[in-house]
């Protein structure tokens, strides 16, 4: 018995219960009672503990992310935002903490949030093994930091999180069948940094102006990697307005992704940020956004926010890689695959 309905192949959204097919979440009770799920959730808890430990040791303050707000991160590829009626005003469920992270830097130099985010991803992403409509993110932002600083923090954070999982969750890692020696070897070596152009060359893809790396290609290059690695210098036109354009190289963003090996693909996105008001408004237009929607944020920016760099790590994606899972839904107690109605 399942309560799930799959709308993906349906011409209109009317309910149709379908049995879980291979590679899709089982009924909620079965999922929760599965020893594998339980082991995965314990590994995840250790990853979060390791991340908190690292960030606290670096002096970052943990803040709680608002659930709703007048606007949210528009930077998600093709994903729909969720509207909430807030006393007659249209509010959004948070898609990431980015706007609040930048604003919070007027209070603290280093901040982080660990919180759920909602993105109604395109239906085609239900088969990527790496998209959930509701997921959790470790969102980090440091004032005065450069992109290289942020990359270094992300590397330390992932290493610390994995070390904590290895140190405290040996049993759970055994239950999921993870080769811990291999995992340790993967995470203890320095993470390489490649440019977007170098990745396209390795893939044999043309340098098409302003385009992202396809998800399939990302999985491919991830499969051939010996360790986690960073991709830097994404072209403008593929990211949110808050990612800083390199003043020395127009059209190139000072952004980065962290790619996990073993075909897991991207688990973290970050950047040095735009902090100049006029630049942010112009970039909003370039990303098709109406600045009027962002008035609370722009008011703060206009009065001055510090330059910063930061990133968001997808917790389920990190967990999927560390636990050696086939799919990201296995790293969530109540997974929501795009287009699948679930608890």
């Amino acid at each position: 018995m399942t309560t799930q309905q799959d709308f993906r192949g349906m011409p209109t959204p009317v309910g149709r219960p379908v049995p879980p097919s291979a590679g899709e979440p089982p009924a909620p009770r079965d999922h929760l009672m599965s020893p594998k799920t339980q082991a995965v959730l314990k590994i995840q808890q250790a990853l979060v503990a390791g991340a908190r430990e690292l960030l606290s040791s670096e002096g970052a303050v943990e803040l709680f992310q608002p659930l709703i707000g007048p606007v949210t991160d528009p930077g998600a590829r093709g994903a729909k935002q969720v509207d909430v009626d807030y006393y007659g005003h249209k509010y959004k469920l948070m898609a990431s903490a980015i706007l609040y992270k930048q604003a919070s830097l007027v209070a603290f130099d280093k901040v982080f949030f660990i919180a759920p985010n909602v993105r109604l991803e395109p239906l085609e992403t239900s088969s990527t093994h790496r998209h959930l409509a509701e997921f959790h993110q470790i969102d980090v932002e440091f004032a005065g930091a450069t992109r290289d600083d942020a990359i270094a923090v992300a590397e330390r954070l992932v290493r610390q999180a994995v070390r904590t999982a290895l140190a405290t969750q040996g049993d759970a890692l055994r239950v999921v069948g993870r080769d811990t020696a291999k995992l340790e070897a993967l995470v203890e070596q320095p993470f390489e940094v490649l440019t977007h152009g170098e990745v396209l060359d390795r893939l044999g893809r043309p340098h098409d102006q302003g385009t992202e790396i396809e998800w399939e290609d990302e999985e491919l290059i991830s499969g051939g990697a010996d360790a986690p690695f960073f991709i830097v210098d994404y072209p403008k036109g593929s990211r949110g307005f808050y990612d800083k354009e390199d003043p020395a190289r127009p059209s190139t963003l000072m952004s980065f992704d962290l790619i996990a090996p073993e075909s897991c693909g991207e688990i973290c996105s970050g950047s040095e940020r735009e902090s100049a008001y006029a630049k942010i408004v112009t970039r909003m237009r370039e990303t098709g956004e109406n600045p009027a929607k962002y008035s609370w944020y722009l008011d703060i920016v206009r009065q001055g926010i510090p330059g910063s760099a930061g990133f968001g790590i997808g917790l389920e994606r990190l967990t999927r890689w560390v636990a050696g899972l086939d799919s990201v839904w296995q790293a969530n107690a109540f997974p929501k695959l795009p287009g699948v109605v679930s608890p």
Partner: protein
Amino acid sequence: MSTLRAPGFPEQDVRRRAREGGASVFPAAGEYGVTVFGADAAEPRDRIDAYRLVPPVFMPRRLEKLIDLGREPLYADVSLESSFGGFDAPLPLYLSALGSTRVAAAGRGLAGQAGRLGLPMVIGENVAPVSGFRSDGEHRALLERIGAYADTASGGTGGVVVQQSTEDANAEVWNHVYTDPSVLELMDSGRLAFELKVGQGAKPGLGGLTMVDEETSHRLEGQYAMERFVPGGPVLRCSSPGTFTAEILRQQIHLMRNNYPRARCWVKLPPGRDVAEAAAVAWRAGADAVTVDGAEGGTGWAPGVFLDQVGLPLGECLRRLGDPSGTLLASGRVHDGVRAVKVLALGARAVGLGRAALVAVDEDPENGLVRLVESIALEMRFLISALGKYAIGEAGPEDLWDPSEPGPGATRQASSGAGESPVRAGEREVFA
């Protein structure tokens, strides 16, 4: 009887086409044998109307077709099949966006007929933010139009193009459509496109203008500017036109291609003085098609001075665009086959029907558009074959004569002598 009027537009001609289909291409049948006809001396309305299509006497392409067919080619041998902006179509026509005005309540009927014809259909801005995303009891909501199209579209040609303007971005029209299960079939068959609306023909430089009732105005207040002229009367809702620079346009197109990789990318330009530069930016950034709306186009509400005195007419837009480096689509008072063929000869890959489509469904909600398109198709076949050509894409500037300028033939003879020179008696070919 409907109250729809289209002043300044050949409304009666379109109504007749919507009633009679192919027969309307000729004078009324009752005139046959009793009336003699000649050219109408009326002044041409614009540059495109002033052009004449001028068939040559010698037709090497017709000879090729004759050899191909093994018989003399006829107008019926002209292929109108077209491919533009990522879609296939049975003829080089698409349905332009009709906006959200009350007139466009005909949208659903139009969508059904466009689907039957297999013609691409653009759904205008504001349909979602004003009329709602799903049905709100009126037949205007965006998905209903898409549904009406998809329900009747069977041939695998055509497609739906969903427009989004700067202020529509608030309503996230594209994100909603892209994630909605009801568009999956169109998306899977490559028949979904998104059109970035940079501006419009009837009021270049202004955003969308719609009259709404008081209740609706309260719902939309804060999001749009409102003008109240008469207490208790309808309220004018004014959108912002959006701010564009070359970089903003380029990056918005990149974003569309990255965020909606399974939808084609169209860009609609207003008839601005830098239309050629803007089109070039759009094509370079990867737009599958650029639509240009002449100042004579448009179906929506606009200040009178904008209709009469602002923006480039389509003919001048096409002149400035020259030989386009990408797929160019054009609209502006297209209502018959000859204007369509002229616009194609001037560089467009397909032409949009706006007011003509509205008048046609007003005349006959069930079949008006189908008959209008039949009449245009028949005229196009007659015209293209008369030019000695047999595919719609072959019409070119050499087929046009501009009465205000010396024709290409005259120029050639005068300057280069490349044409045949007069034959003197002693040079005639002698037959034994």
